């Protein structure tokens, strides 16, 4: 295990500089350069291996790529949302290297002429602080296929007896977003990395250009970290930790690298420029291959494709359709909803802004929407290890709250109804009907139960009559139990006092 320096001590001695490369899988219907279905589009999620392939995805002799116009539009939109300039003409290039998951043994990417460049994006940290992250470029490329190593331990290539290749992913459209070096984040560097990734996810979701599900690999992050001694001008040697694929991991990986590099530098050692692997289980990084000038991808302009030259009209059309930037939207919603800072951060940090907004749009109050999503729904999501937004629709949450407001459900009953909705039993009203969970509002039935309870507890009745109103609790409890909880406790209390005096 590598020697690590205490994080605060590392920050005392060194300034961290981070840079992030994020790949976003576009959810276009077809692939970047072929008419095969795109597995990053929900229509093709469950496809069998090697069924989403056209000749060019397999690199068959004679095959040629054709650019997907939808992917170009998505890429331009993403570039604009990142505040980038859109190149009037950009070119694809071939990145040449041999690997079995790469049918052509070159990847079609963009090299010296990316479609989008020079932008910046506002990133909001958990306490509401805004950091501006400078964007170097966003370029289009195709994904490679997927290798599965068989026979070794834990799916790794070491010790494997054979490898299977699934070319479904080959040719999936990607946009790679590269930040400039991010300075001045100091002890918040890990947090900034995490928040940046969340921001990219929110932007991609807001644009509707990607499903943006990190657990599905729709968004993948490589984190560059370097340290320089306090006061030094020159940037330190960086490492690139590849495929850190959750927001928690990117935060941990950056923190780990800062601590690891600081320990080496403090001992008078030097950092090797290399790619590193992130290990989720141990929370460590390990060396990958050395990255140096030896990496020669022999880039040259892709001769099978023409330059991409979007018209000014197209760019303006896409600009006019851009949704509100996540940070700006948060500012607006915070004002509209009237939440405290803490309340708003609870919602935002859990990635629940959209569903809360939709729940409010469906008729719930802001307070009620927040209460449901950050309360019971978040609790179930946590317990089941799922995303809250996948459990229940905002429309159903609003409907549930309406039933509570109308007195049809108590809070306790509403939680049972929610459980039924999550279990897929239908809408809240349908669950109320099928489970028979509505509050008993028939006073006749309640009075009968109250009279019976009072009759069986004469001592309590006596106390109430003598003005000891708090004694009514015992009777109320008995009635609620008889009603199987399906009564409004307040109404029961009213009636108990009424009947006791009768």
């Amino acid at each position, binding site marked *: 295990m590598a020697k690590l320096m205490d994080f605060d001590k590392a920050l005392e001695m060194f300034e961290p500089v981070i840079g992030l490369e994020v790949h976003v899988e576009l959810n276009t219907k077809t692939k970047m350069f072929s008419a095969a279905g795109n597995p990053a589009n929900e229509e093709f999620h469950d496809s069998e291996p090697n069924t989403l392939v056209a*000749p060019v995805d*397999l*690199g*068959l*002799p*004679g*095959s*040629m*790529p*054709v*650019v997907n116009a939808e992917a170009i539009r998505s890429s331009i939109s993403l570039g604009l949302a990142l505040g980038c300039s859109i190149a009037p003409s950009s070119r694809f290039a*071939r990145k*040449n290297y*041999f690997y*079995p998951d790469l*049918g*052509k*043994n*070159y990847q079609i990417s963009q090299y010296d002429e990316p479609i989008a460049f020079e932008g910046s994006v506002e990133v909001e940290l958990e306490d509401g602080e805004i950091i501006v992250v400078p964007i170097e470029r966003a370029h289009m490329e195709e994904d490679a296929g997927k290798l599965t190593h068989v026979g070794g331990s834990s799916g790794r290539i070491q010790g494997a007896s054979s*490898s299977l*290749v699934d070319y479904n992913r080959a040719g999936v459209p990607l946009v790679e977003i590269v930040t400039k070096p991010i300075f001045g984040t100091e002890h918040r560097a890990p947090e900034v990395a995490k928040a940046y990734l969340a921001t990219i996810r929110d932007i991609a979701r807001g644009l509707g250009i990607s499903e943006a599900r990190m657990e599905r690999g729709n968004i993948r992050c490589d984190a560059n970290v370097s340290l320089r001694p306090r006061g030094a001008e020159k940037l330190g040697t960086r490492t690139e930790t590849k495929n850190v694929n959750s927001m928690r991991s990117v935060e941990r990986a950056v923190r780990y690298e800062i601590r690891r590099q600081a320990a080496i530098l403090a001992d008078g050692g030097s950092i090797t420029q290399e790619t590193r692997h992130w290990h989720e289980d141990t929370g460590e990084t390990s060396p990958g291959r050395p990255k140096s*000038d030896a990496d*020669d991808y*022999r*880039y*040259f302009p892709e*001769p*099978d*494709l*023409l330059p991409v030259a979007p018209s000014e009209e197209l760019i303006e059309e896409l600009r006019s359709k851009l949704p509100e930037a996540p940070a700006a939207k948060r500012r607006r919603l915070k004002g509209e909803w009237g939440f405290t800072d803490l309340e708003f951060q609870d919602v935002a940090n859990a990635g629940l802004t959209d569903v809360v907004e939709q729940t409010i749009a469906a008729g719930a109050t802001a307070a009620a929407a927040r209460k449901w999503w950050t309360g019971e729904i978040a609790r179930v999501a946590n317990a089941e290890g799922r995303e809250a937004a996948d459990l229940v629709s905002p429309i159903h949450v609003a409907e549930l709250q309406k039933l509570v407001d109308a007195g049809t459900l108590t809070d306790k009953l509403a939680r049972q109804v929610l459980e039924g909705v999550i279990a897929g039993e239908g809408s809240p009203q349908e669950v109320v009907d099928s489970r028979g969970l509505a509050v008993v509002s028939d006073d006749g039935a309640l009075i009968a139960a109250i009279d019976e309870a009072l009759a069986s507890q004469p001592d309590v009745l006596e106390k109430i009559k003598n003005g000891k109103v708090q004694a009514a609790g015992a009777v109320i409890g008995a009635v609620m139990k008889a009603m199987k909880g399906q009564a409004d406790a307040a109404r029961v209390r009213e009636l108990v006092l009424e009947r006791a005096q009768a």
Partner: protein
Amino acid sequence: MNDLIKLSAAELAAGLAAGDVSSVEATQAHLDRIAAVDGDVHAFLHVNEGALDAARAIDERRAAGETLHELAGVPLAVKDVLVTTDMPSTSASKILEGYMSPYDATVVAKSRAAGLVPLGKTNMDEFAMGSSTEFSAYGPTHNPWDLDRIPGGSGGGSAAAVAAFEAPLALGSDTGGSIRQPAHVTGTVGMKPTYGGVSRYGSIALASSLDQVGPVSRTVLDSALLHDVIGGHDPHDATSLTTTWPSFAAAAREGATGEVLKGLKVGLVKELHGFSKGVEDSFQAAVKTLEAAGAEVIEISAPHFKYATAAYYLILPAEASSNLAKFDSVRFGLRADVPGTVEDVMSATRDAGFGPEVKRRIILGTYALSAGYYDAYYGSAQKVRTLIQQDFANAFAEVDVIATPAAPTTAFKLGEKLDDPLAMYANDLATIPANLAGIPGITLPSGLSAEDGLPVGIQFLAPEYEDARLYRVSAALETLLVESWGGPLLDKAPALNGGAR
């Protein structure tokens, strides 16, 4: 020799349309000819077992009264660089031995749709790298004019098949002269269309920015007819032009009247040298014929042509090194049975599967693209390309077409230049500039060399998009020359005694 095989494609098409001959008869006649002479010529790597069935289907459709394409029922030879679903597609390489494509090249699909009958796949230099067809992994093709000589390359098989009357038409591909130089040495016609004029989809890529598929035939009109079939936009090829093309056959027929030559400005390139006396004399005689018919000959300067071959041999290997990377044994083709990692298997496969010229160019191209060398090599070559385009633009401001001898010498002996790559590369000095500039070029016979009695070709070049102009001018010259010879040049070719396959 059966008379059917002596017919041009246009003549055969007329006979088919008139019901004088069936496609089955025409196809059988060509299959018989292949059986009779291809043992000596070796123009074909594969003969289509389904040819007669395809011919029969056309005959039936015709009998049923269906309106068919003008060329329906005419047999066609297909260069092995083009992928086909019903015949192996190897690009004459061991690494693709027996490879069956799941799809047809667009030009093959268009040919089938027009009712042309694929006779088989023709021999070529491996992956179209060569000027003699000697680099085929399956043995060389022999020139029907002299079996000890090369048929040109890379498309020596298609040119020889047409010259030996094994097929009236063939498909070729031309990266630096692979259609036009074989035409020159076999006394046939070959056209490299404007870049993007014909789809490259399904043509196993050599150098993507230079490759162009085109027709091979014995007459100018026949090439024009086939060009009409295969040309036009293809959504599968992003570099294919969306231009609406005129009928090339109409242009050839119009040109045959000779009117086009009156006042035509023909440019001769001052800087093109190095042709043998026999080639030069034949060329000059053809130019005299043009002048006599009213053409005006103007000397033009193309100062950057002298860099063309050098630039070409950087751009081509660079692109080829990338295009040929896909031949790695993982998904198709040869797999070397060696122990070790996937990289070991890839490496051993490529070592066993590629021939010497292919390896030479992959190494050259890999080097030219390497970090630190890119600007000096690939970058500089691309600049030369721009300068050559400028040379052409300047020239075509003064002249309508440029005429050159198509290649430095007549057909040389098999084996003569095999060990001298630079001498082999010099074969393409007159044809390469058109590929670098993307302009169309055509070669047709200008006569026989007085030195050795072997065919010589004249090449015409026109500005991009002006393919029809080339058909007009070539057809005009062809009419005059054939008249002067008293019949087609190929009538002077020695009879092939046969030698069964």
